């Protein structure tokens, strides 16, 4: 993750720049929104845009079974799931998604690439992504109703991959609301905070730091906040939360009217599979970073 630190008197690059923005493509509305966001991000960071389309092996195997049926999510009716049909659909889908990627990349004069992998989704994404990459995943509205029980694509990928994952919804966030960051619990809070600060600075928004229970803002945190506030002229405020469970975090984010959440993969809410439901509960973009 390319983060320009503002923690010191002089701004230094703590890490190399992001080289690639990966976006997981499928033909859902959420994925289309993710493609636009990823293209914008790549243009902003001068990074390469990589579209990743995964032909899920579980689905292909399932289609090869003689009794396999697809149950319509809308009507509940079943119809045979045939391997040939699935193969044909995947090819057609890949063609259309490549066109969409090309269009998004060309409009922004980006370097772009379309990759097709045949594997389980998490494994394919993890294989494709490098730690310095950012993976953009769309949050599909309808899947959220059923996904948590099954593990949504977004939460599954955020959990499985080693890079930063940005989960975006179909709705554009409002631009007058703060960026919210959960105070990191580890020894080095800088990467998470730096990312949140940069995000807020780039979009000229205030920053809201959610403080863990029992902890106040450390001297270092206050110094950071004051420094940044002086430089960009936007205030930083601190909010206490009772605990770090996902529902509490969701509540705090609503209260702060946050337009984006930055959270460390190492933080408590993401320590379990249940915690990853947080990613589906929220209406705002969530950036999960290592």
């Amino acid at each position, binding site marked *: 993750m390319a983060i320009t630190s503002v923690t010191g008197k002089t701004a230094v690059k703590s890490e190399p720049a992001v080289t690639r923005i990966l976006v997981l493509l499928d033909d859902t509305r959420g994925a289309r929104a993710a493609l636009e966001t990823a293209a914008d991000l790549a243009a902003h960071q001068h990074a390469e845009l990589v579209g990743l389309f995964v032909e899920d*092996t579980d689905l292909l195997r*399932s289609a090869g079974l003689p*009794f396999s049926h*697809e*149950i*319509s999510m809308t009507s509940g009716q079943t119809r045979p799931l045939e391997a040939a049909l699935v193969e044909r659909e995947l090819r057609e889908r890949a063609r259309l998604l490549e066109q969409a990627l090309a269009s998004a990349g060309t409009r922004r004069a980006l370097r772009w690439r379309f990759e097709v992998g045949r594997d389980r989704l998490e494994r394919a994404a993890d294989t494709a992504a490098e730690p310095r990459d950012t993976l953009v995943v769309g949050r599909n509205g309808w899947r959220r109703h059923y996904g948590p*029980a*099954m593990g949504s694509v977004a939460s599954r990928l955020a959990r499985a991959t080693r890079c930063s994952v940005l989960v975006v919804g179909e709705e554009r966030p409002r631009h007058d609301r703060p960026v919210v960051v959960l105070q990191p619990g580890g020894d080095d809070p800088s990467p998470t905070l730096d990312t949140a600060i940069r995000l807020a600075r780039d979009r000229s928004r205030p920053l809201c730091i959610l403080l863990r229970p029992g902890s106040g803002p450390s001297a270092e945190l206050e110094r950071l906040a004051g420094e940044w506030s002086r430089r960009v002229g936007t205030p930083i405020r601190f909010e206490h939360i009772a605990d770090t469970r996902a529902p509490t975090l*969701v509540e705090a984010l609503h209260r702060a009217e946050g337009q984006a959440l930055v959270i460390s993969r190492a933080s408590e809410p993401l320590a379990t599979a249940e915690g990853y439901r947080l990613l589906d509960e929220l209406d705002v973009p969530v950036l999960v970073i290592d």
Partner: protein
Amino acid sequence: MTITPLTADQVYQRCDPAALDFDTTDELRGAGTIIGQERAIEALRLGTGVRNNGFNLFVLGPGGVGKHEVVSQFLHERASGEATPPDWCLVHDFNTGNRPRLIRLPPGDGRRLCKVIEDLVQELRTALPAAFESDEFQRRMRELQQEMGQRHQQAFREIQEAADQQGIALLQTQNGFTFAPKDENGEVMDPERFRELPEERREAIEKAVGELQERLQAVIQQMPRWRKEAQEKIRSLHEEMAVFAVGHLLEDLHGKWADYPGVIGHLDAIREDVTANVEALIGQGGEQGQSLQAFFRRYEVNLLVDNAEQQGARVVYEDMPSHQRLVGRVEHQVHQGALVTDHHLVRAGALHRANGGYLILDARKVLTQPLAWESLKRALFSRRVHTEPPEQYFSLISTVTLEPEPMPLDVKVILLGERSLYYLLTAYDPDFAELFKIEADFEEDLARTDESIHDYARLVATLAGEREVRPLDRQAVARVIEHASRMADDSERLSIHNRAIGDLLVEANQWAIRDDSRNIRADDIQQAIDHQVYRASRVRENIDRAIQRETLLIDTAGSAVGQVNGLSVMQLGGQAFGRPARITATARLGRGHMVDIEREAKLGGNIHSKGMMILSNLLASRFAGEAPLSLAASIAFEQSYGGIDGDSASVAEYCVLCSVLSGHGLAQGIAVTGSVNQHGQVQAVGGVNEKIEGFFDVCSQRGLDGRQGVALPRANIANLMLHPRVVDAVAAGRFHIWPLSHVDDALTLLTGTEAGVVDADGHFPDGTVNRAVADRLRHFAKLAERRSGGDGAAVKSDNGDNVGDGEDGREE
């Protein structure tokens, strides 16, 4: 028989300034302009007093008599003592959307209601968003959403757990879900491996998958119901919040307006509308603020009729009574290329504004405006004002419009118009008599008495005040009164054409200003009168010039047989003037046929023809009672090239006929006017003042010789109000006015010979005019008898002319 000419006092009824008890009209300020209209006032009193349907009024009278002023003054006085009519408000119709409802409120409460609803809307605009942005609402909404999500998740979780227990994976597909057996790595089993499984195992897996599919199907098919239940709960929450936000505001208003069911109904409708549309309301804002404004505009009130500052009933005069200005109109606005409207764009008409009071309209204007008369009748019949655009009647425009609730109508309509309109409407419109049962007929003049002269002086003073002219001294007022008699064409009456008198005062004021006089004097009045005549005298002067140059042949001295000066009146615009006309006659042997050359040339009107027939029969009855009238005569207005009507020349025509028959010359210095009946009596005619002045001017330009004058019916003496120049000449004996009672008076006067009275034997005395006429006719009769007794050939008159059968036949 000697006919005594009239004295100067008889030809002009002076008004003695000494009889007026003031110096200038300043002392008379404050008097009204209503005099001599007792009959009309009584009708107004009756018409306005009866509140029953149909007792509307039609005020008849010519223009300029002050109908509008009198009616307006009367109605304002009456209305000021009556109850102030209510306010009328128009509110949105929340049921159908296009029938705005009326609310009736005591005067002044309409404004109050508008303000109250405006305040309510302002509060709604802040209270509603506040309620829906509250933490409580947000929390409860999330709870509902979580509840719905958990319900779904629970159902899926149970299926997934059941699948996991059986080693089966639940997978998401493009359009839904599918089940597949898992291998030992937790991945979906390869189809090849599945086929290698024992048959029992495969069947067991298939069965398990089938059961899971059925369970999943059942859950998915339940989902619409769950969603609906969730939406119901969300809607209930919205309503609860909305009621919380607006309930207390509406409750307060309920208490304050409890006595007005219309207002309560509107408040209830607002409450229902807010709760029904709360989702749309809270979804608005930002760029859609205009839509939100339009939404709340539906709650606001259109104060259609505002009587807050009205004292007593209204008196409304609508000077342009078109359909829309009578019954109101629905305006439209262009919005994104379309014509749209709402209840705020409904405008009141004159009937709305006059409701509870009086509406004055000009009948002619109402009748000439398309649809206005029908709309007025419809409103009066139904006692309701229907505001409907005329396009609707004709289907000219098919756009969305409104049909506001008709307003109950209690109004008294007063139509002002000419008498002819009243009579036409009575004759041709059966509805008219139903709706306008009271007629108020305005007088054009009043009797000239000592008392009325004083009233008239006050009228003059009031008119002077209204026209803001200098005060009149008493001599000027006396001259105005004299002129009023002249305007009335009657020395015993006074014209009450206020407009003409007012205009005269304004003109006289200019002369007073020119002379730097503090007051308007009699001379100023006379100057104004003379200039009014002068301005309109171009044609008259042309005729006078033609007479002086003998282009038009008029003799004013000497005598001539078969030629007499008649008098006619020309009406040009607002002015009339008289001019003499030479009438000539010829006579010969014939069969009693009298040729009216004017009629033969189709220049004579019906009344003129009637006069000729009377004249013919008079002649026959006087001179040929026992024998055929063997006469063929013709009478003509010389140098007359336009139409002639009226019978005022019949005395002159009789005289000229007798002249030609008797051979007696007629005095050319005397002009004659008057009609005659079959017994020879002279009857009154019109326009005698103008006729006399017209002949006087011709004579005076040639020089008055003391023998000139005008003979007119005795019955017309009362009409004489001659110009001072004529009066002066009469007083000096240089011009004469002779009154006539019988045609024989005219004959005696014009021939200078006794006309002669028939004796017991039916004979006229020798040497009289009538005797000469009788002898001549008897001679004709003998000739006719002798010449027609033989072979029946054409007879000849004594002057040798042939008298053809065909000519006689025309008399049939």
